[in-house]
């Protein structure tokens, strides 16, 4: 754990016992998060990014879950912490925003009451009146117009964007050190997405808030992230700074993700490129590199799992899991003059 790390995740493994066997949702994820840093975790559905995030707060705990590794918040280990201890971390030190603002508020309570509930769960001495004033202030700070009146609205009276703002206000109500935003913009319109990202970015700068942003949208990542972790089938396949990932991607899966972005500054392709095939079953993942079955550049060595390590002499923080040599990668990732993953023959 680096000295300035606020949150440190080490070799996190999360499996779920199912009728079909053990489903390994997360197979050894490690990262450090410093104050004020925005770490984006990118990957498609089922890559283990949400499970990773929820496990940090102990939300995946269940009799069927097999959780190993370490999650440290400053000096406290969270993975084996008791429920009471964990409860004090949730909301108070780590705030969380979820994907779907439509369903993340309880429909039968007023928005303000739900924020008040979050505050009073941790600050028993705060009066309801004071907590309500705080809720108004928070809603106002995330840009809810007429917050004084809207605090008494029910969630269904808010628009999607307003609900996500309110969700962020609630997650920040106790001024946590870490904010985990699990696909915070996926359910929103593009214009609202931009507003929410702007809001997160501002909060991150103003409050020096460490943020984990989980998304499958590289466009979102490009807007706000400092560092990027690309996940595939429960493992990190590449990580680096925003520039490293966008301008010198090393893993074919990252090429595929970048290649499938629509860009206004490029000629419009006839058909949006996609990565062929589907993610592997987590019940019986392929041996070796998990991306192997979908990778056009697969060769003999891929049957062996490559370690996540720095493979470029000049970029020690840029790690990936691919056996190809950096020269071969730079050559193979060029598809029609830009970064992409060529279609399989």
């Amino acid at each position, binding site marked *: 754990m680096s000295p300035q790390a606020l949150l440190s995740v080490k070799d996190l493994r999360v499996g779920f016992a199912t009728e079909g066997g053990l489903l390994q949702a997360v197979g050894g994820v490690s990262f450090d998060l410093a104050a004020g840093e925005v770490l984006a975790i990118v990957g498609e559905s089922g890559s283990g990014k949400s499970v990773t995030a929820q496990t940090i707060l102990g*939300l995946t705990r269940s009799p069927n879950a097999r959780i190993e590794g370490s999650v440290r918040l400053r000096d406290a280990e969270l993975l084996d912490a008791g429920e009471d201890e964990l409860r004090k971390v*949730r909301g108070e030190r780590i705030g969380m925003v979820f994907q*779907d603002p439509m369903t993340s508020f309880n429909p039968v309570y007023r928005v303000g009451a739900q924020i008040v*509930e*979050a505050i009073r*769960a941790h600050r028993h001495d705060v009066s309801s009146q004071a907590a309500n004033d705080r809720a108004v202030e928070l809603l106002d700070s995330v840009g809810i117009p007429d917050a004084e009146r809207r605090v008494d609205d029910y969630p269904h009276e808010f628009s999607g964007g307003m609900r996500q703002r309110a969700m962020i206000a609630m997650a920040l109500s106790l001024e946590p050190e870490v904010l985990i935003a699990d696909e915070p913009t996926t359910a929103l319109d593009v214009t609202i997405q931009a507003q929410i990202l702007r809001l997160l970015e501002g909060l991150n700068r103003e409050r020096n808030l460490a943020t984990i942003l989980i998304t499958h949208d590289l466009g979102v990542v490009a807007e706000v992230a400092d560092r990027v972790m690309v996940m595939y089938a429960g493992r990190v396949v590449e990580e680096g700074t925003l520039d490293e990932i966008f301008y010198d991607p090393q893993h074919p899966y990252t090429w595929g993700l970048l290649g499938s972005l629509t860009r206004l500054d490029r000629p419009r392709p006839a058909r949006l490129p996609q990565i062929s095939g589907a993610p592997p079953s987590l019940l019986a993942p392929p041996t070796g590199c998990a991306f192997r079955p979908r990778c056009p550049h697969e060769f003999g060595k891929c049957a062996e799992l490559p370690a996540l390590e720095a493979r470029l002499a000049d970029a020690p923080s840029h790690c990936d899991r691919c056996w190809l040599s950096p020269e071969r990668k730079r050559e193979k990732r060029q598809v029609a003059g830009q970064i992409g993953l060529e279609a399989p023959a």
Partner: protein
Amino acid sequence: MARFVARRLAGMVLVLFVVSLLVFAIFNVIPNSDPAQRMAGKNAEPILVKSIEEDWGFDEPLPVQYWSMMEKVFSGELISYGDELNVDERILEGIPATFSLCIGAAVIWLFFGILFGYLSATRAGGWLDRALTVGSVAGISIPVFLIAAVLLYLFTYKIELFPASGYVPLLDDPLQWAYHLILPWFTLAVLNIGFYSRVLRSNMLDVMREDYVRTARAKGLDERRVLIRHVLRNSLIPVITLFGLDFGATIGGGAIITEAIFSLGGVGQYAADSITNLDLPPLMAITLFGAFFVVFFNAVTDVVYAYLDPRIRLGSSAQ
């Protein structure tokens, strides 16, 4: 709200009209139901039957008979063909016993239904859940008369703990009132305890998977608060709806068997006796009485439902 009430009242009049027509029609087509024949007795002279028909107006056309019966029901002048007593008065006499039985049973089934459902859902898969599941299914499957028989056998015959029958008015002696009603209450409640606990259990298991429950946990609420304020509160909405309908239906006829078995002398027992005697006037009045409560509690349920779930607004109050 005014429009809602007006609409519901109109609906109620329509329902009562249709129900009364049905009862009247059925009564006039089932065999051996000719009231004049029955009043005259077996092997009566045709002339006697004829004179009874004229006295009671049975020779009038059916629509006229129907209309005159409706007039009498609502003016309180309806007379039974059997004992020739005033029907409405007899129903009013029976109301305290019927309401005591139904309200008490409702409190019991709601309390135990929610308790067992909550325990089952929060311990899903555990031994308590399994035991309660078996108990609920048994409660739902065993017919009321059998439950009554078993309870009577166990608690009035094997162990002489409770009285087997009779009703003591609440104001005469509250202790005796409750003492006499305990067996009937449980007899009537068992089915719904089983049913409600199953419904609540499955609702709660669904709600536990909702995003907002995860949100509640993520903001650091303790587990009990998550379960009660977020899971149970939301899971109760459909249960309360069900309760409104069931309670109306229980007063409106669901308690007949229980009342009759325990001789409580309520409206239900009056209904049971009138059916045996094919006595149309009380059957008509009791059916209307029952239908009224079913419709009434339907409307009450809608109001309560709108209160419990803010996403629902009664038609006119949204303006």
